[in-house]
C-alpha cells in the first residue's frame, strides 16, 4: 500500500508494524477520526496507556475509553541517525511524552528543529494519515499549554 507521510518519516511499507488488536482498536479508530482516546480503569479510574489491557494499579478487569486532550509535555527523546528499518528516513525524533491525562507514550516529535527540543516542552497531538487505514498520532511543539482537564473525560465510546 502506498505511503504518503506528511512529515516524511516513513517512506516504505509499515504494515508489519501496524497491528491493532481487539483491545487497542478503539485507540487506532480514534486516531483515524483525528481523536485521541485512552483507556480508563472502571474500578480505580486510573487513565491507562493506550496499549495497556489491564490496570496495574487495582487489577480491575474492565476499561472504558475516554477522549483525551492531545496535550502533553516532552519527557525525553532520541534522534535516530542510523536506520534500523528501511521503511524510515533519517533523521527522525522518537519522544517519550507525558500526556496531560497521565499516561506516558512513545511517539514522534515533528515540526521542530532539533536544537530547540527541551525536556518539559509543551506538545500537542497531530494526526498523520499515512494510508487509507493507518493514521499515526504524533506531536509537535505547542507554545500555549492549555490547562489540562478542560476535556470531558466522561465521554465514552465503549
Amino acid at each position, binding site marked *: 500500500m502506498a505511503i504518503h507521510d506528511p512529515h516524511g518519516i*516513513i517512506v516504505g511499507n509499515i504494515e508489519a508494524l501496524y497491528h491493532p488488536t481487539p483491545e487497542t482498536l478503539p485507540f487506532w479508530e480514534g486516531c483515524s477520526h483525528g481523536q485521541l482516546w485512552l483507556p480508563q480503569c472502571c474500578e480505580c479510574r486510573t487513565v491507562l496507556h493506550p496499549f495497556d489491557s489491564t490496570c496495574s494499579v487495582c487489577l480491575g478487569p474492565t476499561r472504558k475509553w475516554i477522549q483525551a486532550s492531545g496535550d502533553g509535555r516532552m519527557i525525553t527523546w532520541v534522534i535516530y541517525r542510523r536506520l534500523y528499518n528501511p521503511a524510515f528516513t533519517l533523521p527522525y525524533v522518537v519522544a517519550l511524552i507525558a500526556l496531560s491525562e497521565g499516561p506516558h507514550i512513545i511517539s514522534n516529535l515533528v515540526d521542530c528543529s532539533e536544537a530547540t527540543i527541551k525536556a518539559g516542552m509543551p506538545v500537542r497531538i497531530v494526526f498523520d494519515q499515512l494510508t487509507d487505514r493507518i493514521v499515526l498520532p504524533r506531536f509537535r511543539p505547542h507554545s500555549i499549554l492549555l490547562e489540562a482537564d478542560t476535556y470531558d473525560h466522561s465521554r465514552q465510546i465503549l
Partner: protein
Amino acid sequence: MDPSFSNRYCIAGIGHTRYGALPDTSVENLHVQAIQQAVADAGLTKYDIDGVLCLAPVSNFQIGYAVKLSGLLGITPRILGALDQEGASIITLIGYAMMAIDAKQCSVAVISYADNPRSGSRAIYGAPRGTDGIFGWFGTPAAYAMIARAHMEEYGTRAEQLGSVVVACRKHAQLTEHAERHREFSMEQYLSQPMLVDPFRPADCALVSDGGAALIVTSLAHCQSLGIRDPIRILGIGQGHQPQDLSHRQKLTTSGAVASGRQAFAMAGLGTSDIDVAELYDCFSITVPITLEDYGFCDKGEGGPFVENGRIEIGGTLPVNTAGGLLAETGLPGPQLVIEAVRQMRGNCGERQIMDAKVALVSNQGGIMQTHSTLILGR
C-alpha cells in the same frame, strides 16, 4: 539478603571461553567449555556439581535450558533451573544458590551463561520496541539513549562525561589480555564518532559478543572438605527492580540500584567508602554514572562529574570496570564482571591489579534498566 548469610558463602571457581567472534563453536560447546574451566579452576570435577543454575541464551531464548545444560554436562544435579532477570540474572542466581545451599538442597552450584549473538543473530538488539515500532522505535541503544537524554536534561550531564566512561573502559581493556577491544581510544576519537541514536555514539554501546562464562558457588564450610584453596567470600547481595516499560516509570534516571545496593551494603555491613574496586554493568555508558549515584558514591545527578578526570580509571579514587566491562572486555550480560571482581580479590590481575584491594562491588542490570542486582565480595 539477611546479614546472617554474609561471609558464609564464596565463589570458588571462575571460567570463561575466548570472547569475540567465535563462528566455529556452538553455544552448547561454549557453555560446556566455560563450566569446565570454572570447575577446574576450583579444583573440582563435574561430579562435585549438584546445582545447575543459568540464564538461557538471550539471542536465542529456549525453554528447559538448565535441563539441557545438565545433559550436556553429563550430570544429574539435585537442583537446576534457568532464571530470567535478563542482565541481572547472574548475581541473582548467586544469591539463589546461597539459599539453596543453606536449605541443604545442594552444596556446589555452577552459575553460567553462553551465547553467540555476534556470529548468530543479533536481531533482538534491533527489534521494534513493543508495539511502538511504527514510531520508528527500534533497538536497545535507543531505549538507553532516552534515559541518557533525560539525565542530560535533568542534571546537565555532558557527552564528555559519557565519553569518560568509554575511555576508562577502553584503557582498562588494553591491560586485559582476553578483552575484545585492545586499541587505544581517546576522548577525541569518542567525540568524533558519528551519532548512532543521538545522544549515543556506537562507542556508548556494549559489544555484541560470542562467549561463555561460569562461576562455582559453595559455602565456606564446604571449602575445606572440597580442598578449595582460594575462596572469595560473598559479603553482600541484593536486587531491585522497576517497571518494564519506560512509559510506566515515574522517573527514568533512577534505577533498581537504589534498593539493590541498600540491601547488599546492609548485608555486608559496609558502606561506599569500603569499596576498593567496582565492576559496574555498562551495557551503555550512561549506566555507570546512574549506578554510582544510586549506590551512593555521589549525590543524585553528580555521576557525570564523578566519572571525569580519571577518577574511575585504575589509579583513580574508585577504579571501575578494571577489565573493560561490557563496553570493551566483552558484551556478555554480566558474568565477566563477577569474574573480574574475583580476580581482583585474588590479587592476580597483573598490570591492572588494584593494589591492596580487599572489597569489590559488582552490579548486574537487565533490560532497559529494569532489573538490578548487586554483589559485594571480599578476600
